């Protein structure tokens, strides 16, 4: 039995499938969508360069069993500053409340199953699954079909959540290949402010495949920062979808850092669904070995007077491959839109390659849009300049590459996370920060 058949069988066995008051209906619909669309192949336009079929031909365990992890197992994965932070743990895709800590006032974290029935049920039914309007393939549907172990995060109106929310996606692949599908719905209330950082870690040496979906709804005058840090093992692969819906005049800021893992596909959708929204999207990827990184972003300017600003930078070494696909929609009545997009790549070896494709679909006439992409090698002139000062070729390369990454690093506004990522990048580039 291949993985997909196995998954479908699991679906029918889950208890909440017939629960029509809670998540049952949305799960049923998603399951039907999954059956109809299937797992995307490279014939699917949005998956042309990223092949995930093999993950569904092998056996991966999808487990509902209680995890067997202790605090000591988790110590190495915790992010700096965790002592003050709010920490949410997913183990094998299931929220683990007994490991998680919510410290900040005005921040509510609940299992989605509960939120779907209590005072939050209107929010849940309105916004859960909104991403499937943008991602027409079976991957989101697959996650939604198993949404019962997800989490609902609610930030109260007017609340400034000072300390960040750290989300850890942990896969325990010590015994078997694991499929994990962590799911989150976040609602940031009017005038509230919150920052998220999420990471992915696989324990053990078996393979893992994570199908992550987080949907974030941002209300009027709210500010949301979101940092995705991908440093998983090379036998761990993932599709990670971040879907942000700005339903009031609001501000969002995201940085996606992809330093490691086998295959990574990121979907980042930003829907600017009210006038005067602002969104900043940054990304940095460093790839080596045979790793594959695919960043698909969508910015949907649905209303007038919004601004989006996107910059992704990549360095690819060895045989690694990269994809950048940046869509910008400007809808017919989204006049006075400002949208900027840029993707810059440095190839560090003959074997590395990248496919970059901006895609602008503009239906309004009074807009300012620009996009650009570059694929190059390290600048010889700069390299010579540094070497002529006595700096070894290797160090000179590291300094130049670090310099290339700096403007993205500066966009990480949680200081300990910025330092943490800077150290990871410097370690990778094999030099010490002076």
């Amino acid at each position, binding site marked *: 039995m291949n993985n997909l058949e196995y998954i479908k069988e699991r679906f029918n066995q889950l208890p909440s499938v017939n629960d029509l008051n809670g998540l049952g209906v949305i799960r049923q619909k998603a399951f039907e969508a999954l059956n109809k669309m299937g797992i995307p192949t490279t014939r699917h336009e949005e998956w042309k360069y990223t092949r995930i079929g093999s993950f569904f031909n092998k056996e991966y365990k999808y487990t509902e069993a209680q995890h067997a992890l202790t605090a000591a197992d988790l110590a190495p994965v915790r992010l700096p500053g965790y002592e003050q932070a709010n920490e949410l743990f997913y183990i094998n895709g299931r929220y683990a409340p007994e490991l998680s800590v919510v410290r900040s006032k005005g921040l509510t974290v609940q299992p989605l199953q509960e939120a779907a029935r209590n005072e939050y049920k209107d929010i849940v039914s309105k916004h859960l699954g909104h991403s499937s309007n943008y991602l027409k393939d079976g991957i989101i549907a697959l996650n939604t079909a198993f949404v019962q172990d997800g989490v609902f995060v609610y930030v109260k109106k007017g609340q400034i959540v000072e300390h960040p929310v750290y989300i850890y996606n942990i896969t325990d692949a010590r015994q078997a290949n694991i499929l994990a599908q962590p799911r989150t719905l976040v609602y940031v209330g009017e005038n509230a402010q919150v920052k998220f950082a999420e990471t992915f870690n696989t324990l053990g040496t078996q393979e893992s495949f994570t199908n992550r979906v987080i949907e974030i709804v941002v209300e009027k005058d709210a500010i949301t920062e979101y940092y995705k840090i991908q440093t998983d093992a090379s036998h761990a692969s993932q599709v990670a979808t971040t879907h942000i819906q700005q339903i009031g005049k609001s501000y969002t800021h995201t940085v996606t850092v992809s330093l490691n893992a086998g295959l990574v596909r990121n979907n980042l959708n930003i829907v600017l669904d009210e006038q005067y929204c602002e969104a900043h999207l940054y990304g940095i990827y460093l790839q080596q070995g045979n790793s594959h990184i695919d960043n698909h972003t969508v910015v949907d300017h649905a209303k007038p007077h919004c601004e989006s600003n996107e910059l992704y930078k990549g360095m690819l070494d060895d045989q690694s491959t990269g994809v950048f696909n940046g869509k910008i929609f400007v809808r017919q009545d989204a006049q006075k839109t400002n949208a900027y997009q840029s993707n810059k790549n440095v190839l560090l070896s003959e074997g590395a390659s990248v496919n970059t494709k901006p895609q602008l679909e503009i239906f309004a006439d009074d807009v300012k849009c620009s996009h650009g992409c570059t694929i190059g090698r390290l*600048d010889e002139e700069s390299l*010579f300049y540094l*070497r002529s*000062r006595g700096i070894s070729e290797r160090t000179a390369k590291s*300094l130049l590459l670090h*310099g290339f990454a700096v403007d993205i690093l500066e966009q990480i506004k949680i200081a300990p996370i910025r330092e943490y990522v800077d150290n990871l990048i410097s370690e990778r580039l094999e030099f010490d920060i002076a």
Partner: protein
Amino acid sequence: MLSIKNLHAGIDEKKILKGINLEIKPGEVHAIMGPNGSGKSTLASVLAGREDYEVTDGTVEFAGKDLLELSPEERAGEGLFLAFQYPVEIPGLSTTNFIKTAVNEVRKYRGEEALDAVAFLKLMKEKMAQTNIDQTLLSRSLNEGFSGGEKKRNEVFQMAMLQPKLAILDETDSGLDIDAIRIVANGVNKLRSKDNAVLLVTHYQRLLDYIVPDFVHVLYNGRIVKSGTKELALELEERGYDFIKSENVEA
């Protein structure tokens, strides 16, 4: 200290240097002048080790070593310094971090211990004062958005920090106002000693008012076609290069 014999170099099929001979002894200052495109910067780049240029003939000995066998960073370690005619802008690399790395890599090459933060800061303060360079400039990304004059001054500052045996300054005076020229000259003169040497590439006599050269050479069409003392520079200033060109009509 530096001995260049019959140096030929070029790029792709183009021959640029066509038999350069030059001897520089410790304590000397040499000036190289010559019309645009004659090969001055090429000579400076070949000496510093730029790999784009292919040396097709000749030898270069520096401090007893075969210079052409060394990588650019080894040459710097041996005490060669080139102030670039067009310094490169490097975004994201702070000037201070760059200089610190350079100073310590050169020290490592020489088998000396790295400077600690305190010692480095002290050295920096001293050289900043000497070259009139501002702290805010050094905290910015290397040369990024620096004015022409600021870039040149940064080159002189780097030279002061690295204390080379042989400093090659490629038109470091171009684009500088009078005050800045004095500062550059001051920096060079501070470096001068009986053990160090300087090779100045310049188009203007005015720099040579401040740094008096022992020898002046004219480079034309890839060769040194005339050498003399500081009076030659004055003559060139007065008469231009035409008389040199007419004396050296290519066969």
